[in-house]
């Protein structure tokens, strides 16, 4: 057991690129679920559209990187419109089923053989992050000696990513204290009351879906740039569920909830991962292989994660910083 190693690896993950991705995705979900009460279970779909827009623009069409960013944001707007038109008039659980189905359609299409020329099939796309990396002022590994260290590329992704998180949080903060944001919150509380005040609820919900979806697209960009590669497996259904866990840990309907949630989530996930990996490796492991092999050890964190999501929702649905009165979980 190397406690210091475990701790520094966990801190590295908690502040690292993966945390950035989940934080951005959860900020989007916060706009949807936390503020508007929309149950979007297809955030992975928005992320996939964003990530693939960059990758495909650069690799398959040979166009500039920034054009890919523009395409990604435009494509998520289109996706939000496509999803919103049939479902925003329906009950919350219908929206959940449709968005999860849409995300799965997107994932299957992106991985299909028929579209290999554009999206690279199951093996995905590579070689699209050169432009992004060429902007990096960082040349060597960065970190605090003996505690944490990140590779140059990872750190550049982190710098850009956390800056984006900061900007997004500022946008959400300003939006939600504006009259527009108050309408969103009142839609969450009582849709019919808002309608009776003459507001077009449908239009507000659509705007919320588009804005949250664009935050999802940013998460998709960072996913692609983090690993400098992209494939459909990055955008499985579980990603959305993990992003919800991040949001619920920090507290929905709080501007900084997703940030706190992402850091805590990744710290715990990687701590459990490293702990059980160390406990099962070597000649005389702490946990005998009859009880747990090293392969099984990698599953413990997801078992705990599922359990944590259940317990969180049952006993503390407002998360760490949330306000219980500000939760749309009883809407029907």
């Amino acid at each position, binding site marked *: 057991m190397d406690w210091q190693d475990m701790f520094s690896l966990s801190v590295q993950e908690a502040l690292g690129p993966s945390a950035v991705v989940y934080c951005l995705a959860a900020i989007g979900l916060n706009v949807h679920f936390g503020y508007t009460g929309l149950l979007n279970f297809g955030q992975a779909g928005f992320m996939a559209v964003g990530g693939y827009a960059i990758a495909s623009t650069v690799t398959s069409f040979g166009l500039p990187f920034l054009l890919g960013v523009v395409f990604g944001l435009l494509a998520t707007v289109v996706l939000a419109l496509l999803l919103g038109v049939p*479902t925003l*008039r329906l009950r919350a*659980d219908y929206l959940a089923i449709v968005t999860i189905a849409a995300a799965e359609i997107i994932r299957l299409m992106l991985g299909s053989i028929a579209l290999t020329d554009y999206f690279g099939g199951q093996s995905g796309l590579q070689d699209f992050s050169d432009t992004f990396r060429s902007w990096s002022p960082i040349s060597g590994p960065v970190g605090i000696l003996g505690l944490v260290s990140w590779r140059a590329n990872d750190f550049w992704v982190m710098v850009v990513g956390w800056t984006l998180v900061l900007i997004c949080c500022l946008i959400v903060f300003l939006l939600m204290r504006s009259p527009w944001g108050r309408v969103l919150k009142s839609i969450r509380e009582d849709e019919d009351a808002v309608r009776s005040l003459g507001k077009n609820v449908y239009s507000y919900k659509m705007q919320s879906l588009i804005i949250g979806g664009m935050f999802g697209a940013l998460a998709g960009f960072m996913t692609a740039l983090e690993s400098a590669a992209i494939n459909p497996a990055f955008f499985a259904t579980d990603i959305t569920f993990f992003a919800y866990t991040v949001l619920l840990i920090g507290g929905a309907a709080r501007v900084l909830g997703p940030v706190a949630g992402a850091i805590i989530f990744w710290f715990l996930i990687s701590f459990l991962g490293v702990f059980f990996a160390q406990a099962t490796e070597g000649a005389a492991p702490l946990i005998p292989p009859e009880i747990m092999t090293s392969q099984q050890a990698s599953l413990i964190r997801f078992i705990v994660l599922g359990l944590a*999501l259940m317990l969180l929702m049952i006993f503390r649905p407002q998360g760490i910083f949330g306000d219980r009165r500000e939760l749309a979980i009883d809407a*029907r």
Partner: protein
Amino acid sequence: MHACLRRVAMLVAAVVITTIAVTGSASAAAPETSQGGERCVRPETTDDDTISILGLICDTQETPPSPVEGVQITVEDESGNEVGEATTNAQGGFEIPLPGTALDNLGKQFTLKLDEESFPEEVQLRNPNQVTRTVAINLSSDAFVAFPVGPAPGGGDNFFVEGLQLAVGGIVFSLLLALSALGLSMIFGTTGLTNFAHGELITFGALAAFALDRLPGTISIFGAEITVIVGVIAAFAVSGLFGWFQDKTLWAPLRRRGTGIIAMMIVSIGLSIFLRNVFQYFAGGSTFNYSQYASVTPWELGPILLTPKEVVIAGIALSVLVLVSLALAYTRTGKATRAVADNPALAASSGINVERVISVVWTGGAALAGLAGVLLGLSQGFDFQIGFKLLLLVFAAVVLGGLGTIWGSMVGAFIIGILIEVSTLVIPAELKYVGALVVLIAVLLVRPQGLLGKAQRVG
């Protein structure tokens, strides 16, 4: 409600009659295939200490199927050493015993290589790249490999026959989908919970039967081995118990606390992640088959191939569905269930014990889902996320028929199941689920209450 009931009853009756007709003609048509020349004969599996790799090289596009004789096959182990070879006999079969006992070979992989030179000139493999095949030995019985020969079925001219074949497969699949959908829809109808952990109930059934199958020894009755059949029944019962237990320990307390339906939905997501990883913890990530019925020779009904296994699976699923439908339509509990699904408050005020009904629904729904899981595992093998992969299709079926309606979920399952299979005529097979999910979204656009749902405000 009554008119609707009658419509569904007629539909069910029509399906029953068709199935009986198909099974009837199956037994009549089966012996007719022995006419002239050598037939393809699958080598018999031997029940001894050694594992053999058995195989068949056969042109199934000819009627009757014509065997390919004299093809040389070699087997190599993981490090590339040749461990055996064989030549196909006049019936197209070959048998390669593996050195060592069954235990030595368990968990290993072997590579089969066909000698292309030894192929007769007029015969070609269906997939020319498939001259090597990897076989993983994960059961202590003989492994069977088939090399399809000749052009792929349906080269355009028998479009109709191919469609029919796919529709038959679709019907079998849709019966299993209906079993799963019924439980999901009943649970939604009575409790308002959109259960994202329903897929794990399906996997649970498949795993429960597999656990029984894995126990040492076999169960026989009058000399016939029935281990897997006992497994199917046990999976049904254990899954029901699992559902009852889940309701008692998790969902009933949550309902008493007055937890909102969206909170419960998120709890079910957590449960789904939890159970799926627990399943993988114990079962591992590989694909399993039950010890019996892993591969069977299909019957030929005219141009259509149908395995006896599929007929039995469809028969079991159909009879269970009919029984459940009858129970829902005529028994006191069934009527009470429909009353609660219709309006829980009204049902409670007219003296129905709603909690008891919900408990019955959870038990029954989980048992049906478990049965669907083990039957699905029998028909195509399974892994720890078989139910999770199926979940969205079950949702599609339920939403198409009308969320919370009992007959609707079955109708929806039939449409989705058949659509998925038949749609591969025009779209690539890898995208067949996309079609079903697009239908799901389209239905919500046009008729959000589903086919049999009541036209009420759902927004």
